[in-house]
C-alpha cells in the first residue's frame, strides 16, 4: 500500500471522527464514557446524539456491565476510556459479562502504551494486548495512525462480537490513505522486501517504515507489514513473508510478554521456525517523560528496529 505522511494527527481523533460517522449512519450505535469524553474525542458524538451518549462517571466496571446489557435489545455500545481502565481495571467484567457472554461490545481504549507520556507508569498500560488476546472470541485491533483508526472504528461496528480497539494519545504521522477500506484480520504490506520481515502494529508502524529506509541505505531489503489486527492474526501473510525473508522483527508498544511478537512467534514455531527479534518493552513498567524520550529509553525507536533487523539477519 502507498504511504506518505500528511502531517501529524492523534489516533484518538480518528476514533472520534469514526464514531461520529457511525452515529450518523447507524441508529443502533451508542457511546458510553467514564468521565474522559474530551480525551477520547467523543464530544462531537455526545453533542450530536445526546440521547445515545451515556456518561457513566468514574465507574469503569459499571460501564462494561451496562454496555453488555445494552446489547440485549440490539444496541452496539462503544465504551471509551483509557486503555488501562479499559482492560486491567475491568478484566473480570469483560471476561464474564462481555466475552464469555458473547456480547457485541466495542471496547475503545485510548492513551495506550508509553506514548501516553508524562502521566507515567500508572496510566501507561503495556499489557492490554496480551490480556485481551487471551480472551476467547475477542477481536484485538491496534491501528497505526489517524486514518486507519477512523477506518477501524467504522469497520468494527459491522463485526458482530466483542472487539478491543486500542489507540493512543500523541500526534503522530498520519500516513495511510483517507477513507481506506479496513478489513479485520487482514495484514497490510507497506514495503515489499527480501532480507527481513518487519511486522509492526500501532505507533511502531511508522517507526518500522522509517527503519526500512535506513536499512535500504545499508543495502538491506526489509519487508514492512502492518499487523493492525492482533487477533485474529493474519497467519497466511506472516508465513508467506517469512518463507521469503527467513527472519523476523516484531515491533509494538507493549510488553514482549503477550503481545504481537508473542502471537507471531507462536505461529512461526508451529508453521515456519525462523529467528525473531522483539522490539517491545522488556518486562518493565514505564515512567514519566515525553513520548519520544520514552520510546528511545525503552528501546522502541527507529534505531532499535534497525538494530533488531540486523540482529535477525545475522542469526539466519
Amino acid at each position: 500500500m502507498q504511504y506518505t505522511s500528511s502531517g501529524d494527527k492523534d489516533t484518538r481523533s480518528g476514533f472520534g471522527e469514526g464514531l461520529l460517522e457511525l452515529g450518523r449512519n447507524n441508529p443502533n450505535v451508542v457511546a458510553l464514557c467514564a468521565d474522559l469524553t474530551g480525551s477520547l474525542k467523543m464530544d462531537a458524538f455526545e453533542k450530536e446524539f445526546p440521547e445515545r451518549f451515556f456518561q457513566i462517571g468514574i465507574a469503569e466496571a459499571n460501564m462494561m456491565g451496562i454496555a453488555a446489557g445494552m446489547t440485549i435489545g440490539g444496541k452496539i455500545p462503544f465504551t471509551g476510556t483509557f486503555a488501562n481502565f479499559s482492560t486491567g481495571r475491568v478484566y473480570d467484567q469483560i471476561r464474564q459479562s462481555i466475552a464469555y457472554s458473547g456480547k457485541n461490545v466495542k471496547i475503545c481504549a485510548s492513551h495506550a502504551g508509553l506514548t501516553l507520556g508524562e502521566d507515567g507508569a500508572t496510566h501507561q498500560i503495556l499489557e492490554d494486548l496480551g490480556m485481551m488476546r487471551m480472551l476467547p472470541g475477542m477481536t484485538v485491533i491496534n491501528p497505526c495512525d489517524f486514518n486507519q483508526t477512523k477506518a477501524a472504528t467504522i469497520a468494527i461496528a459491522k463485526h458482530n462480537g466483542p472487539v478491543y480497539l486500542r489507540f493512543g494519545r500523541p500526534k503522530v504521522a498520519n500516513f495511510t490513505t483517507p477513507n481506506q477500506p479496513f478489513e479485520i484480520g487482514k495484514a497490510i504490506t507497506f514495503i515489499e522486501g527480501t532480507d527481513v520481515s518487519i511486522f509492526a502494529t500501532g505507533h511502531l508502524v511508522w517507526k518500522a517504515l522509517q527503519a526500512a529506509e535506513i536499512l535500504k541505505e545499508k543495502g538491506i531489503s526489509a519487508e514492512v507489514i502492518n499487523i493492525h489486527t492482533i487477533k485474529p492474526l493474519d497467519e497466511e501473510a506472516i508465513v508467506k513473508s517469512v518463507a521469503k525473508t527467513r527472519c523476523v522483527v516484531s515491533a509494538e508498544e507493549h510488553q514482549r510478554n503477550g503481545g504481537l511478537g508473542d502471537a507471531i512467534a507462536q505461529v512461526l514455531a508451529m508453521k515456519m521456525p525462523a529467528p525473531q527479534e522483539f522490539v517491545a518493552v522488556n518486562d518493565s513498567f514505564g515512567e514519566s517523560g515525553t513520548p519520544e524520550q520514552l520510546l528511545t529509553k525503552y528501546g522502541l525507536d527507529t534505531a532499535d528496529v534497525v538494530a533488531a533487523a540486523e540482529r535477525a539477519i545475522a542469526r539466519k
Partner: protein
Amino acid sequence: MANIDNLKDICAQVRRDIVRMVHAPQSGHPGGSLGCTEFFVALYFDIMKHNPQNFTMDGKGEDLFFLSNGHISPVWYSVLARSGYFPVSELSTFRMINTRLQGHPTTHEGLPGVRVASGSLGQGLSVALGAAQAKKLNNDNSIVYSLHGDGEIQEGQIWEAAMYAAAKKVDNIISTIDYNGQQIDGSTDHVLPMGDMAAKWVAFGWNVLHMDGNNIEEVIATFNHAKTLTGKGQPIMIIMKTGMGKGVDFMEGSHKWHGIAPNDEQLKAALEQLQSTQADY
C-alpha cells in the same frame, strides 16, 4: 393472577428439583436456591410478561430477568424448565459434562432463558441497567428484574450501579436482594456487617420496598405494588427476607448449606419433606 395453591404446588416441586439437581453431581448451591423458590415461581408463573416458547436474546416487548448471584442456578434452571424454556428432563444434566446447565448460568451453551453469564459476583446490576436503558431507547415499556445476594452487595460494582441507576433515573428496573443473612464464611454480620441495608439504598436514591420472600402471597403483592412505582423517575429495590435452605428443615438457616450437596441419606430426608406435585424429571 395465578391460583396461589397452584403456585405453592409448583414451589414444592421446584424444591424437589433443587435438592435432586445438586445431589446427582454432588455439587451445587442448594441453600440460596431453596430460599428464593417463591421469588422465582412468582416471577415466572405470575409477574413477568415473557415468552418461554420462543426465547430471543433481545426479548423485545418482554420483561427480562437477570440473576446476578449466579450460584443459585438450580432454582432458576428448575423454574425456567417448568415454565417452558427447555425440557424438564434436561435438569438431570446439571453440572455434568456437555450440559447447557452449567454450574453458573451462561449464554455460552445456548440455554434459553439466560441472557448473560453470571457467577463472578457484583456484575448483574450493571447489565440489568444496560438492558433497561436499551428498552427505553427502543420505546419498549417492559420491566427489567434482577436478583442479588446480600453477600454480593459487598462488591463495589454494585454501588457504582446503584449510584448510576438513581442519577440517570432508570425507573424501569425492579431489583431484589435476597436478604438471608448468610454467606460462605458465615453470617453476613460475622463476615462483613452491612449495617442498615435499606438506608443505604434509600441514600443512593432508590425506592425501597420490603417483603417476606417465603410468603408467596406477599411476594406477588409486593411485585404488583412495585410495578405501579415504575416510570416515576426512581429505580426500585425490594429487600427480601428469606430463609437459606427454606423447606428442608436440616438445611434451614445455616450458611453451611450455601454450597454443598446432600448425600443419599440427606436427599431421602429432604424429599420426604417436599411433596411431589408435578412429575419429577
